[in-house]
């Protein structure tokens, strides 16, 4: 018989370290579905328009407030939802820390009401994880039968017309990736051992995420690539948004790591974010000077870790105030990934940009110290 994950009972939800999206936002989903009178694609819990509202936030006619799940360009969410509605598979690309998984989970929760049909892609993901496996005890005792079959999340999604999710698609070996081609183009999964097939029911779709900095890992074959509509999730648009994200995450992390509270770090955080953004974008914040970009990703996630590291330094070895010296070493480590090329880029940046900037004297000195 098919092995399926039983719906989690309420007590488990309460105590779960991190509840699934469809549980955490059950009230919002219900309110949206109840007031949604637009046409819904087959087996969708709500209309595409309502899914977009769920992700972007808004207020419903009856006053229910939908919190925004994704803060970013509206266009991105609209294209993603529309893609799912056109039965094309959706590929979310982005550097680490751009909320790919988060968006995919919420999309699945809103569209199918279930975000748990998930395949985690790793270098060791086997074909069985995408197609099906066998319950060998059954297989030996009774021979091949539907009962001995262990379906993968993708197979279950096909049979039930749900949304399946594949995380880190590019980490999966290429031959395993390609098993998705038949599923996505023919919308069917043959089981030659039984002489049967599982045909996808209307409503089935697949959301994959991949890290576009790791393109070299297991690049998608163009045949597979063609089955996906690609949406690139961007890094935060404005410096203020990014400073806000970093400050908030640092605060949360600091509390969970029991770091002593360090006041007035915001200036230093702003500087870290500025340095990261400028090097990443290849242009200074005032847009007047172009810069070379180093080989590292310099994502928001890295900025967070630099600041967290700096906080730990300040708390344990410094005077308890986050200073330029505390973050300088972290920045150097994040920027200089390739010891030859990146170092030149970094020094050029220091000498041509940082040195002349008002109020950055201490930062320049600290960076010079660690770079020397």
């Amino acid at each position, binding site marked *: 018989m098919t092995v399926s994950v039983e719906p989690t009972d309420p007590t488990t939800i309460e105590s779960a370290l991190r509840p699934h999206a469809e549980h955490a936002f059950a009230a919002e989903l219900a309110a949206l579905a109840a007031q949604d009178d637009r046409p819904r694609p087959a087996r969708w819990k709500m209309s595409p328009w309502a899914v977009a509202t769920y992700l972007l936030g808004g207020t419903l006619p009856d006053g229910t407030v939908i919190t925004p799940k994704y803060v970013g360009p509206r266009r991105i969410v609209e294209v993603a939802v*529309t893609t799912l509605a056109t039965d094309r598979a959706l590929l979310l690309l982005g550097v680490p820390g751009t909320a790919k998984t988060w968006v995919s989970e919420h999309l699945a929760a809103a569209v199918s009401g279930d975000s748990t049909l998930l395949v985690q892609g790793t270098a060791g993901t086997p074909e069985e994880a995408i197609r099906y496996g066998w319950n060998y005890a059954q297989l030996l005792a009774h021979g091949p039968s539907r009962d001995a079959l262990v379906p993968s999340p993708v197979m279950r999604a096909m049979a039930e017309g749900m949304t399946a999710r594949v995380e880190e698609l590019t980490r999966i070996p290429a031959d395993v990736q390609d098993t998705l081609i038949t599923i996505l183009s023919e919308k069917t999964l043959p089981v030659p051992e039984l002489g049967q097939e599982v045909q996808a029911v209307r409503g089935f779709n697949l959301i994959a995420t991949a890290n576009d900095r790791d393109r070299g890992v297991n690049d998608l074959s163009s045949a597979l690539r063609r089955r996906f509509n690609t949406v690139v999730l961007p890094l935060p648009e404005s410096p203020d948004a990014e400073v806000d994200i970093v400050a908030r995450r640092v605060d949360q992390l600091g509390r969970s790591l029991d770091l002593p509270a360090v006041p007035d770090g915001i200036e230093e955080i702003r500087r870290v974010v500025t340095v990261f953004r400028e090097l990443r974008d290849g242009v200074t914040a005032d847009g007047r000077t172009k810069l070379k970009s180093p080989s590292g990703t310099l994502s928001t996630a890295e900025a967070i870790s630099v600041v967290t590291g700096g906080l730990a330094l300040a708390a344990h070895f410094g005077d308890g105030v986050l200073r330029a010296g505390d973050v300088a070493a972290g920045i150097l480590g994040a920027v200089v990934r390739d010891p030859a090329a990146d170092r030149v880029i970094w020094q*050029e940046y220091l*000498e*041509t940009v940082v040195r002349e900037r008002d109020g950055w*004297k201490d930062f*320049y000195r600290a960076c010079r110290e660690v770079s020397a």
Partner: protein
Amino acid sequence: MSDDTAWRRSPGPGPLLLGVRHHGPGSARAVRAALDAARPRAVLIEGPPEADALIPLAADPEMRPPVALLAHAVDEPGRSAFWPLADFSPEWVAVRWALEHEVPARFIDLPATHTLAWGREEGEAVAIPGTEPDEPGAGRQEPDAAEEPDGRGRKPDAADESPTDRQLRVDPLAALAEAAGYDDPERWWEDVVEHRGGTGERDVFAPFAAVEEAMGALRETYGAGGRDRDPVREAHMRQRLRAAQREFGERVAVVCGAWHVPALRAKTTVAADRELLKGLPKVRTDMTWVPWTNRRLARASGYGAGVDSPGWYGHLFRAPDRPVERWLTKVAGLLREEDRIVSSAHVIEAVRLAETLAVMRGRPLPGLGETTDAVRAVLCEGSDVPLALVHDRLVVGDVLGEVPEAAPAVPLQRDLVREQRRLRLKPEALERELELDLRKDTDAGRSRLLHRLRLLGIDWGEPAESRGSTGTFRETWRLRWEPELSVRVAEAGVWGTTVEGAATARAEADAEHASALADVTGLAEHCLLAGLPDALPVVMRALADRAALDTDVGHLAQALPALVRSLRYGDVRGTDTRALAEVAAGLAERVFVGLPPACAALDADAAEEMRGHVDAVHTAVGLLGETAPQTQTAAASADGTGVLSPSGQSPSGHRDLRRRWRAVLRTLSGRETVPGVLRGRAVRILLDEGELGPEEVARLMGLVLSPGTPPADAAAWIEGFVGGSGGGGMLLVHDERLLGLVDSWLTGVPAEAFTDVLPLLRRTFSVYEPGVRRTIGELVRRGPGERLQGGAAQTGGTPGFGAEADAGRADAVLPVLRLLLGLDVLDVLDADNDLVGAGR
């Protein structure tokens, strides 16, 4: 026959007023349909009446839009206004319709003679209004066409305007569209006006009635929308309309900005309108057609109120049906040309995505936004890079308009003639040479003119080698005016209306499109020679950008000397070169950072090339330091520890640059991975600069020449240190200690290695002057090295001399001395070493 019935179907009595959105393909199509249905006896179009005579040229087969009507003041070609027209512009459609149906067409807006004069009255743009040919076109898109003929009268960011007001002025339809929740006015127009009530036979006049109504409401709310000159223009339009009605009867159609429709409908008296038009300033103007480009139509190129996507609009206008499918097929074709794999299946999926997106966004048909999103997600795999290409080539488009030869001369030609007269420089077919002394005003002006023309590709003069002095204030030109240069002048008319303005625009465009750093540096030099200070900021910016992204230190090092040279030229000509100095300092800074890593692990040829760069940079940094007192720079403002000092913004910045350069050289000299020739060169420069004392140099040299160093490397070091004709030999002549080190090293080179180092050494010493070579030879024969052995150098004594006098040689001098001094008896003469030394 059916004419009269058609006319009766037009909305309301009186003339047929077709309010349009300038450059709206939807409007254009609607205008054509309305004209076809109404068949008026005359077509009146919003535009300068001076252009009436030019209308027949629009039918010329050689005339291809986009083109622009250009009005300019005769005495002041820089004062000009443009009215660009694309083939999807309603005005163009109306002109063509009239020509095809042999119906008179008239422009009815206020004459350019007044609008251009307005700008002058206010004393605006006296400098060089034609600098950016794009900008002056306050013309067509704005309903307030040529209100600010030079485009400078009111920048969009004038302080006292709210964004809404500004938008209203620029594009009232856009304001309406935004109020309806649309980001693209063209889409709103399509959705609301064109697809409105699509059942049965559509009434071709209905959209115009609807727009007139909407505009009426808008103008009731906003009045003239802050455009105080509109009443005057509209009065003139009404007057022209009345005249046309007297001539052709009621059946007259007017194509004008939707904004003006309510005003033309309004009932005013002839007397009141005449009153408004009284006493307007005048200036003698001339009109012609000039070619235009899609890029200039696009708003992104600084054209005040252009359209974002002329290519897309053109497509919408031309596509007979299925605009989205056709568009995506076009995109796929472009991407295939660029070697991206795009199959028909991709296009199908893109169309589906675009259509579904349109449904989700509640639009009847996919627009540019939806198709672009679909192109990005499906055809470009989420990447913005190919999308940028699509935007550049298709959404904006590369279309270049053409104008028949019969069109009147461009103002640039007139300006050139005037300049020639002013500078007394006649165009002659005979080649002649011209000597210019740049210290004289006229000559400096001539030089500038010739340089500007060269920038524009009009090679009237060619710089020649000066025969006499080579001073920076002299220039020699070879002049020859070829007939085809007139054609070039006409072509250059695209760039602007004055020689200076056109050259500036051209230089800016060149700077933006230049690929190599050296090209931009050359351009910067040229701008200074041509006296185009206005182009410098753009060129400098391009230069700084190229420099920032160039990873090859060699390129940077090559660019630096040219830049510093420009800086000195600028001084001679009294140009403000502060920006240049700043960029030069930044460039030097980048060289400093990049040089040490770039010098590692080079082969012999590369090292030799790099040595040239090091020398060039050294000279440049020296010159930059000298230029310092006149030019302040924010760059290079750190003191010893690299800490900003408040006084860092002072001229000492450049001296600081030299200090930092020496630090770089020190790094170079001490790094093992740097080829010997570079290390030697670095040490030599430091010695000459007084940064390293002779003691230290001797130590370094001893280190290099010690047995642990491979002979080839040591020989290279020697070449770097004393090689070249720049007095390297004299150093060895004067500092015998160094010569001794070389000598003893050379004698210690193993026989098998000697043949390897011989070519290097030969190269090093063969360039010395014969005298120097001989002296060194003599010194070596005397054997300075031998005397050094036994640690003589360490125990003291003047370098190059033995610890004790050579008694034998000293004695030989004594008889002569005696004779000279008249001494018969000189018992013990202390042979003076100095005397002996001085004899050499």
